[in-house]
């Protein structure tokens, strides 16, 4: 049996909405094993995205712990959390979230630049460009390297976003409604990319509200009222 890579224990999270406080996560327990492709489904407002952000350390729980490779993220310093987001996880968002000022290739190797100083970057630039170009070629975007994000279709942008998420070879890919802004066919293509990545050993946690999409994953977790029901 493979080892767990992410473990959430007793996660609580609430948001203030005006005068009232909305409890989003209520003592959530979750374990993700290395190499799993997990889909988290739930209705709108069930806390799926919040959970994903907490697992990727973009957000912090009010209480509870997230363990990554048996290390508690609560004990990480800001610096280590930045490194964690840079090296260990890769985010894919519904709206792609590419930087318009950078071209496709630069967007992909952005995580590699973030983790290096100017001098370090000059020593690594060629290697980074090669890896980014390789990823883009793998996703059928070899002829789009110098294009700007706004010159691409939605599906192409999402593939660029996936390439960027994979740039630093993260252990876990966190995808927040990755097909939510795409038509069925394009969305299906993206899911096929995920399936291939998972077959190659990539751990993927995908949030979606669509049951059909979730079925592509190896395991489906349903989130209801801030807790996992199955």
């Amino acid at each position, binding site marked *: 049996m493979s080892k767990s890579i992410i473990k959430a224990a007793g996660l609580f999270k609430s*948001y203030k909405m005006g005068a009232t406080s*909305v409890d*989003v996560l209520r003592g959530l327990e979750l374990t993700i094993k290395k190499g799993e492709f997990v889909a988290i489904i739930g209705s*709108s*407002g*069930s*806390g799926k*995205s*919040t959970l994903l*952000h907490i697992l*990727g350390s*973009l*957000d912090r729980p009010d209480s509870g712990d997230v363990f990554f490779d048996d290390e508690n993220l609560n004990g990480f310093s*800001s*610096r280590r959390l*930045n*490194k*964690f*987001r*840079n*090296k260990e996880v890769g*985010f894919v*968002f*519904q*709206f792609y*979230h*590419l*930087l*318009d*000022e*950078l071209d496709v290739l*630069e967007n992909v190797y*952005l*995580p590699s*630049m*973030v*983790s*290096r*100083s*100017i001098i370090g*970057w*000059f020593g690594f630039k060629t290697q980074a460009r090669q890896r980014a170009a390789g990823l883009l070629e793998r996703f059928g975007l070899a002829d789009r390297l110098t294009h700007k994000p706004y010159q691409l279709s939605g599906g192409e942008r999402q593939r660029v976003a996936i390439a*960027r998420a994979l740039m630093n070879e993260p252990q876990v890919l966190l995808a*927040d409604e990755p097909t939510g802004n795409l038509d069925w066919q394009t969305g299906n293509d993206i899911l096929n990319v995920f399936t291939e990545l998972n077959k190659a050993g990539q751990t993927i946690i995908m949030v979606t509200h669509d049951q059909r999409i979730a079925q592509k994953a190896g395991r489906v977790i349903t989130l209801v009222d801030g807790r996992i029901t199955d």
Partner: protein
Amino acid sequence: MYKIILAFRYLLKRRISYFALFAVALCVFVVLVVMTVLSSLTADFKEKTHRITGDCVISSRSLAGFPYYEDFLKTLEKQDIVEAVSPVIKSYAIVKTPQNEQTLKIVGIDPCSHNRTTGFSDFLYYKNFTPLEKVADFNSDGKKTLTGYPDAGSIFTPASDTNMPAVIAGIAVMFDRNSGGKYNAPISLPTTEITITSFPITAKGTLERAGTSVVASKTFVLGNVVQTGCSADWENIYLSFNDAQNLCGLAGEPKRANAIHIKFSKGVDINKGCAKIDSLWREFAGQNKDLAYSNLFKNVSVQNWRDYNRTTIAVAETQQALMIIVFAMIGVITVFIVFVVFYMIVCHKSRDIGILKSVGASNGDLMAVFMVFAFLTGLLGSAIGSLAGWRFLVHINQIEGWLFRHFNFQLWDRTIYAIGDIPNKIDLSVLAIIILSAIAACLLGAFIPSRQAAKTDAVKTLQVNRL
């Protein structure tokens, strides 16, 4: 590296950042042009005032002057710190020319020693005189042998065939100026008789020969005119030391002078030199306190050239101070403009901030992106402003000339102000200060928005539905 790339792209691809660039460029342009012109005018005025005065002046506040100046001159000449000294008579007189009659300052000088002390001959308008240094060398055996101060300078010997001694008038005393700022001085000096009528003052401070004839009058011929760019141009008339001493009643025993101008040797700090001269004077006055008319010593003070010309320099320095205040306000406006523009950019780029945080950028990194952006804005804005300012200054006189020809507009009315061409030489150290200040203003203006960028919640910016 991404910080520089992103900052550079934000600068070039966000149109709103052009406003910040334009604001910085405009401020640098204005400050550079105004600083260059006004500072050069002020510096030029001070430099000329310094040259025409010498480094240090021992002067009496009384027209009665002070006695035993010749003895003190010998003391001064022995000092290593002193390169040259010049005794001067200063008073007021009614000066009658063929055109008019006016009250002017009469300044009695020994041309050789005064030229050594102040570079007086450099300011003479007509250059067809025997070089003063040559006369000085001819009359002296070396650096400090100007004993007796002979009235030997050829400048008071008129070129025209006349037995009358010559005087040198301030150029504005004799000639008007045209709208281009040039004096209407003829090519060769006209033969002009000038009558000087003064009021001789005794050592007791009273008018000589009271009750009978109380004035001394002498007619001279115009030997040259002096153009200094300072008040001397319209206030002064120079004559030989002996003539002035006689006209002012200071020639009787003990002979008196109104001032001694001093030039220090090279490398001597003016303030320290003046302090040394002050101490020597006090010692001299103390040693001679029992001599006749030593009471006149109490009117004597030792000042550096700046303090001696305080009344005129203060005006220029006040203008400079006002200019600095105005520029400080311009700086504050620049900071505010940069702040507003950066605040808008940070709000507009909040999604980028979230993206960068999601790939591991720290708060410090994000702040650095916008601070580098601000630095580039300051640098590029300064470069544009400096270049525009430089081109404008190169052509400023032609521009003013064109405006005058077509719209009768002049920055300074040349018939009133003693200004020729508008100075346009950029002081590189001033330019460096302006550029650094512009960059600092950009960094200051961008600091709060950059901090706000660093503190932005990534989750809020990346999500449409937060839950």
